[in-house]
């Protein structure tokens, strides 16, 4: 079976700094992947490369069977490769309902329509409402995004991602800045997402990683060090040395 998302020999450098070196990964459908590694390992860069926010110097990216290496970011999103951001990048003045409705309109290709009122597209709004409901955001969905609590904004990030009907969802530290007790709830919501969606998330909290990931990729210095089950990763001495060792030592 073809992988949902895969890369071959992906390379990127900024001047003399190598941020991605010969990255080859292959994410099977429906799997929950964690991407871990010390700061500066190139995790966010990898997401930027896969989603087209950065152009690779070499290598290829496949979404299913399709080579998407040359596609613009928005065209990758339209094909189902969707990401969220580590730092909230939302629409401060739009309400949560409007933001998610917008994402649905873009997905369905109705966003260019300017001669019909938004109220003629009730289905889009209903769907947005359902997504917000599934993430427990309904109570505040009419308020401007900037008035939402930080944790709610993190959830809205995910809601925007879901609105695009992703086949692959890349979550860049979805719980960044969220207190530990709330982050469990956030990951429970992520774990509850449809099994049709392949998920890759960056996360630093090892408890969370081991609890919610079925497989783990370890990156160091722009390279993939190792890929395996949580068990394999936990027992690997190299991981202890470069990652766990540096954190706990």
């Amino acid at each position: 079976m073809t992988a949902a998302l895969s890369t071959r020999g992906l390379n990127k450098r900024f001047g003399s700094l190598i941020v991605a070196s010969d990255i080859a990964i292959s994410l099977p459908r429906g799997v929950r992947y964690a991407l871990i590694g010390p700061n500066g390992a190139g995790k966010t860069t990898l997401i930027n490369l896969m989603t087209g926010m950065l152009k690779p110097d070499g290598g290829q990216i496949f979404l299913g069977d399709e080579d998407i290496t040359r596609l613009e970011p928005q065209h990758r999103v339209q094909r189902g490769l969707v990401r969220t951001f580590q730092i909230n990048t939302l629409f401060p003045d739009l309400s949560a309902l409007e933001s998610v409705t917008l994402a649905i309109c873009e997905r369905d290709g109705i966003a260019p329509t300017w001669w019909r009122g938004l109220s003629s597209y009730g289905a889009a709004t209903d769907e947005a409402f359902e997504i917000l409901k599934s993430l427990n955001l309904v109570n505040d969905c009419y308020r401007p995004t900037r008035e939402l609590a930080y944790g709610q904004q993190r959830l809205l990030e995910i809601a925007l991602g879901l609105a695009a009907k992703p086949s692959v969802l890349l979550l860049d530290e979805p719980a960044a800045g969220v207190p530990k007790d709330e982050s469990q709830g956030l990951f429970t919501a992520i774990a509850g997402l449809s099994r049709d969606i392949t998920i890759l998330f960056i996360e630093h909290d090892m408890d969370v990683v081991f609890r919610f990931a079925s497989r783990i990729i370890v990156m160091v210095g722009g390279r993939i060090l190792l890929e395996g089950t949580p068990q394999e990763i936990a027992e690997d001495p190299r991981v202890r040395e470069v990652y766990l060792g540096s954190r706990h030592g």
Partner: protein
Amino acid sequence: MIATTGTALTPHAYLQARSRWGVIEIAFWLATLLPFFLFPNYLSLASQIAITALFALSLDLILGYAGIVSLGHAAFFGLGAYAAGIFSKFVWGEPLSGLVVAAVVAGVVGYATSFIIARFRHLTLIMITLGLGFLVHELANSAHFITGGADGLQGVRIWPIFNYFRFDLYGYTAYSYSLVVLFLTFLVARRLINSPFGLALRGIRENPNRMPAIGASSRAHIRKIYTISATIAGIAGGLLAQTTETVSLGSIDFQRSADVVVMLVLGGVGKLYGGLLGAIIFMVARDQFSGLNPQFWYFPIGVLLVAVVMFLPGGILGGLSRLLAGIRGRRP
């Protein structure tokens, strides 16, 4: 203002409430009829105000809703004015077809330049709009044989509307004509703002970097709204040419580009009515101080701009809505 009553509101009711006509809106449009009865001697001024308001509305669509700061929007106003004027001089003076010509010329040039506009943001974008504005101004200035250059375009003769309503000295027809065009265009703009496209524009304004990540082609959106805005600016320019039966370089210069930004900011950016309100205040004030040396006129404008930026973000309408929200908030 929408009351945030939590879950009691269904998504549909919320959307409908956002696009429903408010009492203040209806009152505003009824009030535009007042000059016919209260100030019959000022109908020419009222007509100029309506035209300027239409121009400000066109700028609001790109500045207020898509976040494109343009310092050269007079290019499209002027293109429309010259197109309508030259059309009436060399083809015929029928006003409605002339207005269509003005709209099409400005729209086509707007569409062509939108490919440039959509590529840039920030300072470079401001510079590009400024540069294009000066370019068109210089073009109009140098093409003396057809535009009349610095002497202005003479010999514009406009036929009666529907071959019946003659443009009179008092500006009765002029104001009626400008007001109807303003209102119809406003309806289109209002529908646009409340459409899925309007939502996408607000998305671009709020966070252009996020738009690709939700699958949006921001550039296509920007090209479209820029073309629409240029078309409306062209209609406004065409109206001015037809109602005054002359076109001067003043219709296309930097001063006009700057003035319209000032009006819009003064009234309130991104509120649809901000440009209309700003145009009324600006034009009435300028008429009152018309005896003054024009360079002194810059002083209150400058002070106003500094004051709005420093103390009144959102302009007059922004201030009013905050005031209203404050009063409502204090109610038990």
